[in-house]
């Protein structure tokens, strides 16, 4: 597979042949593009071997687990965690950030396993939520200590699980005292911007969307709560779009896409017949308009996820509207005619403003 640098070199040759760029610029331009990190075959085989060796050791320990005294089991569990954390510290010291990130992620997983296994080894029964929060706090601490986006993603996952997702989405379930993901998700978003981590930006954005939906479901589980969630996510999407466009921040684009999808999800949920109060055809018309707006915005911003949200939103809105109106095709035709007219007028206005 040709790398980015290979593709630029090929394009440069074409531009030089066409007289668009001087021959003398070829070498400096190519020199400014760093070589992408590639895993050669020998290194790949070494990784495969290491993974298989790890699996073999795990299987050997699992086969003899019952024979080990409890203290030995405990020492082994702590030792595995300590080994991964120690290896991560060693890599961090030798300026190998990617390896340190991966090892800290595994260390965070190993600690979560250690919490569960310690309870099993010593028959300690306790609150599962506390165990998940503890795992999340340690994962976050490891992430902050070693600047590990992977460990922070795990921290979000553990804290989100700790907020008791098993209670279901019905508002009758008791809300936890403090939904800690509501604190952790914005903090993770800020860290993603500070660390310039795309992976963490995706995880933080998903966590913010999930938290907004979860709070709406837990607090009220009615149309008003989901509408409030949709508005909040739409406001966040506007902020993220500003970040992406005005400050040309690629991470702003990540948040922008997820928040638009989240706003649509919350808005669509508000239109489901949750209570005796129905939003009715007005909801479908706003849905149609919002989907059209997202489609136009996505095309204007060259943002594929937002465009996709608009396209799917349109398909969904049309389908649901048809379902709502039943076989009354005349009414359906009138609604679609008005919607088409609005879209055409809006398009014309945008074209005139652009010219």
């Amino acid at each position, binding site marked *: 597979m040709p790398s980015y640098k290979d593709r630029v070199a090929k394009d440069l040759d074409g531009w030089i042949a066409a007289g668009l760029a001087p021959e003398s610029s070829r070498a400096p331009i190519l020199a400014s593009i760093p070589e992408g990190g590639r895993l050669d075959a020998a290194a790949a085989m070494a990784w495969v071997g290491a993974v298989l060796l790890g699996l073999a050791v795990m299987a050997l320990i699992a086969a003899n687990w*019952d024979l080990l*005294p*409890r*203290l030995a089991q*405990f020492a082994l569990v*702590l030792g595995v*965690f*300590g080994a991964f*954390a*120690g290896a*991560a*510290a*060693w890599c*961090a*010291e030798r300026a190998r950030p990617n390896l*340190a990130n991966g090892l*800290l992620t595994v*260390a965070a997983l190993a*600690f979560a396993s*250690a*919490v569960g296994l*310690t309870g*099993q*080894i*010593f*028959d*300690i*029964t*306790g609150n599962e939520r506390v165990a998940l929060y*503890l795992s999340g706090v*340690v994962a976050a*601490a*490891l992430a*902050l*200590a*070693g*600047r590990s986006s992977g460990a922070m993603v795990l921290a979000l996952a553990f804290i989100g699980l700790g907020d008791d997702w098993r*209670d279901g989405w019905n508002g009758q*379930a*008791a809300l936890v005292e403090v939904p800690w993901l509501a604190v952790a998700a914005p903090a993770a978003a800020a860290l993603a911007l500070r660390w310039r981590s795309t992976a963490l930006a995706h995880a933080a954005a998903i966590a913010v969307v999930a938290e907004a939906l979860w709070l709406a479901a837990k607090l009220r589980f009615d149309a008003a709560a989901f509408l409030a969630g949709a508005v909040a996510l739409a406001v966040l999407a506007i902020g993220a779009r500003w970040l992406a466009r005005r400050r040309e921040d690629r991470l702003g684009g990540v948040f922008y896409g997820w928040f638009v999808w989240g706003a649509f999800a919350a808005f669509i949920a508000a239109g489901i017949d949750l209570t005796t109060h129905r939003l009715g055809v007005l909801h479908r018309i706003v849905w149609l308009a919002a989907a059209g707006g997202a489609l136009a915005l996505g095309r204007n911003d060259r943002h594929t996820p937002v465009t996709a949200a608009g396209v799917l939103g349109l398909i969904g809105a049309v389908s649901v509207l048809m379902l709502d109106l039943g076989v009354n095709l005349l009414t359906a035709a009138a609604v679609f005619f008005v919607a088409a007219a609005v879209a055409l007028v809006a398009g014309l206005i945008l074209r005139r403003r652009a010219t």
Partner: protein
Amino acid sequence: MTLRPALRIAAVAALAVLGLIGLVVWESWQRAAGTEVVLSIATVDPRGLLSGDYVAISLQEPVAVGRACPPGIDTDPAAVTGKEPEQWIALAPAGDHAAAVGAAGERAGALRFAPLVVRGRATCAAPTPATADSGGAPGTLALDLGVDRFYADQAEVQRINETSTICQSGSCPVAAIVSIGRDGKARLKGLRINGQRVVLSSF
């Protein structure tokens, strides 16, 4: 002063390990120092495949025909969702084991029933009264003290499993040995199987 990343990672890892060791020491001390009681078990279900070898236990006491459910204990098991607030449950000797004799929202309220109290939830299905056609049916008093599984090795779990079939027929030869700490928390010490103690050892 900023610490180097390696030192920061080592410090977090050391704190996490010390925290887990501290938890084990604290729980073991609380278990050893608590008041030991034996509680009846109604059902014994062996092992969860993904959670290691364990015995799932259900603390239940039959309520004889003609007896009433203890005061303060919810008498509608069908309405139980598992999310009710915890109560203080009073335990008193009943033959060779202990049984719940009352419950209250406050510790002081539960102490009026018996001097030994534990935090948890209790529900009671009242016995069916005897009629001219039948002798009635006993009710059940179920306790949820957070003690619901006993981890053991595979051979031990299989041995306990053999006795579980007897539990289904009525009288269960397995009972839970529980330590009630000063904090009111129940901690499982082991099982009593056919009169023989199988106690968790730390080594």
